[in-house]
């Protein structure tokens, strides 16, 4: 089973990297771009067992994510065969 954790800055936190990418895109002619936010993806493969969503959420909060400035979602990328 593979879990995908997507981490992004909270809306209240400014994202200078996203702003630079946004300006570059607009400069290139993509004038319809309103905003760009940059995030991180973790794909975590776990051994074959039952649902590990709770533990994945727990370890995300403990280690992967800084809850002061970031938020995250967890999705199942690949089910057990």
């Amino acid at each position, binding site marked *: 089973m593979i879990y995908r954790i997507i981490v992004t800055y909270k809306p*209240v*936190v*400014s994202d*200078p*990297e996203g702003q*630079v990418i946004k300006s570059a895109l607009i400069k290139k002619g993509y004038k319809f771009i309103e905003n760009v936010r940059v995030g991180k993806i973790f794909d975590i493969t776990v051994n074959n067992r039952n649902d590990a969503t709770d533990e994945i959420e727990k370890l995300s909060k403990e*280690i*992967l994510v*800084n809850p*002061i*400035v970031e938020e995250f979602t967890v999705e199942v990328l690949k089910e057990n065969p």
Partner: protein
Amino acid sequence: MKVGIIVFPGSNCDSDCLYAFRDILDVQAFYIWHKDKDLKKADLIILPGGFSYGDYLKCGAIAKLSPVMDLVYSFAIKGGYVLGICNGFQILVEMGLLPGALLRNRDLKFICKNTFIKCVNNNTKFTSTIENKNILNIPIAHKAGNYFIDDKGLKDLYNNNQVVFKYCDSNGFIDEKSNPNGSKDNIAGITNQQGNVLGMMPHPERAIENLLGSEDGISICHSIIRSL
């Protein structure tokens, strides 16, 4: 007084800290490897600057999991003095010993230059001997020093007198122009509520003798020695 300097893989200001305390200030100072299980009776623990674990995941996020950090955490909770400089500040924030977070610099660049900081609270164990209008010339060297805290957290910091250093110009004037990295309210250093843990992005250990361009950092060390 004994000073223990924690060394992680990727620390690079550990020897500067040792030099400052042992060679300049004549204080007993030693390294503590991150896998050690003993703080060797240190009175002050320093988390030095550098790039612990290559800054992987988030700056300081892996270092906080090192075996010795459980001891550092208990030491701090019991009132032991802890000074986190640069990466050390990032580690303290990741550990939850200090509030807020350190984001990438506003301009996304690594900044290495001399800055002026103003001590806005002399009533701490780390700043009691600072003079000269409280303006210090101390270098910064970081890419993730943009201090962030939400509005409520900021209010709490001020209410508890936890804001200690702010970026300023050479006259001590604090404004956006003198803010090198986008830090909230120009904040360069804070303590915990109890006042025994200080985190700061500027490097006092790199401003320890005039040969290095400034000796303003030494007043922080003197303050600690006096408090202990």
